[in-house]
């Protein structure tokens, strides 16, 4: 807009014109000078693995939606359409890298070995956290948009101080770009050169709001203003996402400070099972993105490489079946928490007031069922 501006003297962003990608829509591989060096290990086995991951997490996601419709879950935030973004990231990290995500990253939880019961309990409402964050190196879902970004930066600062090469990774959506926290987190990360990866899944919507409400330039530009280099990658190209994540992780692990990845993707389902997306987006747009299905693209690629799709699909089907059966069993087996447990863990130490409230609660509950009083109020 300015008459003769001097261009920024730094090269902080790649993929701005067109998101970085290595698989074309038709499944053919294209060269990419930035990502190719990170793809040297790619072979049929790896590709099959990525495909199976995506297929299974899609099945898990669909099953969770079904469970919600059946009344077994209170709510579910579908990730359909974002499988490549999440699997590409999830399959690039070291086991001890620590993830701080939002609520839609169930494919990442899957990569982290979170079991079906652990994944579902929050959505069934039986716990506030499904799993042990330390066991899986992944914090449980964060509901407050953007809040987890600070946690990742703090964690990263601590690993750095301890001289470890673990990195922290924080995942968030396009909507989170507007929260103060997400922006402050970039300030802290840049200031302390923290080993943290900011991973934004731009799925084009924050509930009903299209991404241009949050940003009218590409999201990948945002971090550059904080001095954080950034990659804009096709989030429906699992190979590209994996390569970009590997590249970023290398950069970060080498002590060069934080990086940012914008994975450009699309949420094919509703925001959550409570949402009605027909109110805010049209079928044409949806159809366009359905055609860009991350699984389809990799399938075509595998086909071109001569893999047997029949075998692959059968394999995917079998594993999906296993996973969804496990989910059904796990949901049925999820224990209803004992009412009194709600008083546990408010503090790590003793709280006399709560002990008293628990006693009162016990007595009150007992008073409602007089016939059981003797046993339970003892």
């Amino acid at each position, binding site marked *: 807009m300015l008459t003769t501006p001097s261009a920024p003297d730094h090269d902080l962003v790649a993929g701005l014109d067109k998101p970085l990608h290595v698989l074309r829509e038709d499944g053919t591989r294209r060269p990419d000078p930035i990502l190719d060096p990170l793809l040297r290990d790619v072979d049929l086995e790896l590709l099959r693995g990525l495909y199976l991951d995506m297929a299974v997490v899609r099945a898990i996601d669909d099953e969770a939606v079904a469970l919600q419709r059946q009344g077994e879950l209170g709510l579910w935030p579908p990730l359909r359409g974002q499988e490549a973004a999440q699997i590409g990231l999830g399959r690039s990290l070291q086991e001890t890298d620590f993830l701080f995500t939002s609520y839609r990253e169930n494919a990442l939880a899957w990569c982290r070995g979170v079991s079906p019961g652990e994944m579902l309990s929050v959505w069934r*409402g039986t716990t506030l956290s499904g799993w042990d964050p330390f066991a899986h190196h992944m914090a449980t879902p964060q*509901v407050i948009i953007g809040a987890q970004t600070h946690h990742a930066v703090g964690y990263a600062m601590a690993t750095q101080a301890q001289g470890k090469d673990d990195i922290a990774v924080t995942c968030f959506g396009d909507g989170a770009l507007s929260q103060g926290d997400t922006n402050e987190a970039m300030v802290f990360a840049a200031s302390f050169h923290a080993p943290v990866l900011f991973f934004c899944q731009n799925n084009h919507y924050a*509930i009903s709001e299209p991404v241009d*409400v949050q940003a009218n330039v590409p999201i990948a530009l945002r971090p550059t203003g904080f001095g954080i280099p950034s990659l804009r990658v096709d989030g429906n190209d699992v190979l590209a996402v994996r390569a970009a994540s590997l590249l970023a992780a290398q950069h970060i692990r080498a002590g060069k400070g934080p990086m940012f990845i914008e994975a450009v993707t699309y949420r094919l389902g509703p925001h959550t099972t409570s949402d009605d997306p027909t109110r805010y987006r049209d079928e044409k747009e949806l159809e366009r993105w359905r055609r860009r299905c991350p699984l389809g693209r990799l399938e075509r690629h595998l086909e071109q490489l001569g893999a047997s799709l029949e075998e692959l699909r059968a394999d995917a089907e079998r594993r999906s079946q296993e996973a969804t059966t496990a989910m059904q069993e796990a949901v049925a087996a999820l224990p209803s928490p004992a*009412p009194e447990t709600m008083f546990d863990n408010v503090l790590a130490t003793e709280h006399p007031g709560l002990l008293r409230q628990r*006693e009162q609660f016990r007595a009150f509950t007992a008073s409602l069922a007089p016939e059981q009083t003797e046993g339970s109020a003892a």
Partner: protein
Amino acid sequence: MSTTMTMAAALNAALRDSLEADEDVLLIGEDIGTLGGVFRITDGLKERFGASRVIDSPLAESGIIGTSVGMAYRGMRPVSEIQFDGFVYPGFDQIVAQVARLHYRTSGTVQMPLTIRIPFGGGIGAVEHHSESPEAYFAHTPGLRVVTVADPQDAYSTMRAAIECDDPVIVLEPKRRYWSKGEVDTSVSAELSSARVLRTGRDATLVAYGPLVVTALEAAVAAEDDGIDLEVIDLRSLSPLDRDTVAASVRRTGRLVVAHEAPGNVSLSSEVITSAVEDCFAHLEAAPERVTGYDIPYPPGALEDHYLPGIDRILDAVDRTLGRRNSREAA
């Protein structure tokens, strides 16, 4: 002239009529435009009044409130929506350090006629941060009005009064009552700061607000079976408090029970009881009782029925004030 409608519809009508009545009124919040709000409270309003009066904002609560402050400087009367109770905290600084103080800070020169709408409370089986009762934070803050609504008529009239009021008003909408129905007469106006005696009674005063007003009325009906005659007061205004209405009642009944969903520690019930003690100590025949959420974070949905004050817990407390057999006698 009255029609039967849900509280959600009554709120929608109040917003519509306010937008219609005053061109300085505008709405701003997340998903309130095209979607019509996650609870559909703003349904159809963007279509009717346009995107510059029903504004889908970026996802940032501090921005929603702070931007509204700036609009108020320029003479607008913004109605800001916070999508759920648990998301108000990122906007807390703008509310307590700006909205609440600008009139005072500028010796009355700058008015802040903001209305901040917050669906609040539990009982809908939601995930974390969607079931909270943050009223104590706001009631403690000088410079804010904090009001609750309890039924469709009250919702309509109070919302209109809040928007017309030159003070910043936080309107807490009991989300689990959004779909409860009632008669609404849009010509009825409400006074923002007064409590309502919803039922007169002799034996004890039961004070509630928001989602628990219905519960309190139900408890009063149930108490009849035991021959107990409860007076039920809907507090409505949490700040300023209508101490006089409560005190007048307690002077007659000599007994007081206060119920709300928020944790009891340093809460509205602490204040209502302390005020009553100050105002009519000599008339109290028993220690006042509170029936509140426990002093714990809001528990997982599966346990919320144990957490939320229900009829039985209220009646148990009433029994204590009356010296009747109750759950704590054995404890």
